[in-house]
């Protein structure tokens, strides 16, 4: 994972001046930012390590997606959905994997297919509701 980002931990009690520009109001808050401090992803609140890793993969995917690199983003979303299928975050990863594939190819079939897949795999997820607009 560390090949994909530079990890830094800041204790807000000791370095209040560092977190103010990022509008952090709760701890822990995890941010993915670019070197110019532009924020791409935010996670607030504690998660167990396994779930945390799933969210980091989604966060990296979201960062690449927002940087107009949908093909690279798709790899992280796919990993999150496949390797962390037992977590609550798998449905979110599945949704964004399809969106990234669509953005990379302009082929609407990826959205059409994922709506059906998600209805079966994650019937109670709010991400399945979001994908339902593509169901036929």
């Amino acid at each position: 994972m560390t090949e994909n980002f530079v990890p830094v931990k800041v204790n807000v009690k000791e370095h209040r001046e560092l977190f103010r520009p990022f509008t952090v109001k709760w701890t822990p808050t995890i941010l993915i930012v670019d070197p110019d401090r532009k924020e791409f992803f935010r996670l607030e609140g504690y998660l167990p390590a396994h779930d945390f890793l799933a969210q980091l993969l989604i966060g990296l995917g979201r960062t690449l997606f927002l940087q107009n690199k949908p093909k690279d983003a798709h790899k992280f979303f796919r990993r999150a959905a496949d390797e962390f299928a037992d977590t609550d975050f798998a449905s979110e990863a599945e949704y964004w994997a399809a969106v990234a594939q669509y953005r990379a190819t302009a082929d609407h079939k990826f959205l059409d297919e994922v709506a059906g897949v998600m209805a079966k795999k994650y019937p109670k997820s709010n991400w399945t509701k979001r994908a339902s607009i593509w169901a036929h």
Partner: protein
Amino acid sequence: MFEWSHDLDSSLTKAKEHFKPLLIDFSAAPE
């Protein structure tokens, strides 16, 4: 899990040099 740095400025510089995003953990708990 990771080798965390504790220096935001040097981490920003490192991120810029390696074209990588920065993962920042803002925490209040002592390590």
